C-alpha cells in the first residue's frame, strides 16, 4: 500500500494505492488524523481509485477520520470506490454515512 498527499488550495487529497488491511491501516489512520486534527485542513479527500481491497481495519480508519472531521468541522470525502471497497462499506452500513463521489472532479466541486 502506498499513500501520498497533495494539496489543492484548502484541500488535501490522499492518493492511496494497493490493499488496505491490518498491515497498513494504522498508517492511513495516522495520516488522516494528523491532517484533520493537527493541520486542521478544511477539506480532506481520499482518492481510493487504486485501492483494490479494504478490510474492516481499513474501514475503521476511515470511520475514525470521519469522526475526527465532524469534531473539527472538516469536510471528509471519499472517491473512486472499487466494487470491493463499495461492497465492504455497504455491508457495514456505512456507505450512506460518508460523502462519496465517483471522480476527483466531483469530490472537489
Amino acid at each position: 500500500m502506498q499513500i501520498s498527499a497533495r494539496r489543492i488550495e484548502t484541500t488535501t487529497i490522499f492518493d492511496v494505492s494497493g490493499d488496505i488491511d491490518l498491515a497498513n491501516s494504522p498508517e492511513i489512520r495516522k495520516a488522516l488524523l494528523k491532517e484533520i486534527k493537527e493541520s486542521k485542513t478544511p477539506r480532506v479527500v481520499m482518492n481510493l481509485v487504486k485501492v483494490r481491497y479494504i478490510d474492516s481495519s481499513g474501514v475503521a480508519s476511515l470511520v475514525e477520520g470521519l469522526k475526527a472531521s465532524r469534531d473539527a468541522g472538516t469536510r471528509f470525502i471519499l472517491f473512486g470506490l472499487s466494487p470491493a471497497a463499495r461492497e465492504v462499506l455497504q455491508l457495514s452500513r456505512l456507505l450512506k454515512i460518508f460523502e462519496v463521489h465517483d471522480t476527483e472532479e466531483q469530490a472537489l466541486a
Partner: protein
Amino acid sequence: MSVELLLKMELRSDPGMLCVVRAAMERLTEAFGFSEPECRSVTRAVDEALTNIMRHSYEGQTDRPIEVLCQRVPKRRGTGGDGFEVLLSDRGPAVDPAKLQGRRLDEIKPGGLGLHFIRQSMDVVEFKRERGSNLLRLIKYLQSEKQD
C-alpha cells in the same frame, strides 16, 4: 464423498502475510467454482478471521503460529453443491465465546466489523477450543452441484 484436502498453510501472525493468504484464497475459491462475488466474500471472511487472530488472540505479536486448512466437504442434505471449508487455528489464549458476537451496525464507530463480515460471508461459522488451540471452522457451499 469424503473430505478432500485442497490447501494447507502455516504462517506467522505477521499482518504482512494477509495479502499472501488473500491471493491464495482468491485463486482457490475461483478454482472451486464460486462466482466472483462469492470469491470476494470468502476471501474477505478468511482475511478478517486471520486479522482477528493477529489482533486479539496474539495481541499484535508477529511471530506466533497460525494454520489455515482448506478442504472440500460433502454437500448438505437437499440441494446445493459441495462445501468449501476453511479451518483456522491458533495457539492463543482461550477466547470467550461471549465476545464472538460482533457489534450492532447501527452504531457508527470504528472496529467490531470483522465478525460481522465473516458471518455474512459464510454458511457455517463455528468456534471451539481443542487441545490448547482455538479452532474456527468456516464453510461456504456452492449454490448448485458443480458439473464436471
